[in-house]
């Protein structure tokens, strides 16, 4: 059985976000530590930061027209980046978090259909969260709305 369209989109998104490396012209290496649905007990170690994790949360369905079996979906995906301060050059955790946000938007913005897997991607919101212990860490969340279409009450294209 073929993968669902939702799975295809997440797979394509993971491939896309893995490109976020300084060697590829981005400002951070957040794409080097990429995961999906990482849980709170699976703690990130210092050497895994910067990192990205994606969470495909809600998926709203709407029939394209009454009596038809094509559905337009709007799926909400949260991309959570984790940043800390870096040295050489000295960059604060907050500055690195803002760089991750910019990298995510640059990465997604360069192909808003993920290679024609999705219909369209819209950025919805960004937010920053700070936590402080021995070091200061910043979480940045970028929420995207990914539109795609399925047929026959199905989850495939």
């Amino acid at each position, binding site marked *: 059985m073929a993968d669902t369209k939702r799975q295809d989109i997440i797979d394509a998104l993971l491939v896309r976000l893995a490109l976020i490396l300084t060697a590829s012209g981005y400002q951070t290496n957040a794409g080097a530590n990429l995961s999906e649905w990482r849980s*709170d007990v699976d703690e990130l170690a210092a050497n895994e930061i910067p990192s990205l994790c994606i969470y495909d949360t809600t998926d709203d369905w709407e029939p394209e027209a009454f009596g038809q079996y094509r559905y337009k979906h709007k799926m909400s995906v949260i991309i959570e980046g984790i940043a800390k301060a870096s040295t050489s050059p000295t960059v*604060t955790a907050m500055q690195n978090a803002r760089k991750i946000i910019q990298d995510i938007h640059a990465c997604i913005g360069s192909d808003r259909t993920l290679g024609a897997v999705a219909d369209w991607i819209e950025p919805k919101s960004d937010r920053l969260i700070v936590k402080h212990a*021995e070091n200061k860490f910043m979480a940045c969340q970028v929420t995207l709305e990914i539109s795609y279409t399925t047929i026959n009450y199905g989850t495939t294209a």
Partner: protein
Amino acid sequence: MAMDFSDDWDLVYSASGEFATAATLTISAATSTVYGIFDKAHQALDMENVSVTSAGPRYRCQSALVSSFNRKTDTVTISSVVYKVKAIEPIGTGEDSYLVLSID
């Protein structure tokens, strides 16, 4: 000769104290070596969904030593690591305090 609690803590806060850790306090650019108890337990930080492994370093010392501590400019150096002080938390009657430490 019996010792009271105060004598016990005097021993802790001395170079010969079994669990004492030396720290260099830099207060208004003047340095002094003090002795206290250093603790650096594991601390998991809940971000939003992800958690990050960190530590919660803190240093217990006599409050009088840090009464003029300026958290914006002064530092504590322990084992060559320079810490800022996020908070000074008095313990009990306030004779001792925890210095809550961070690197950045």
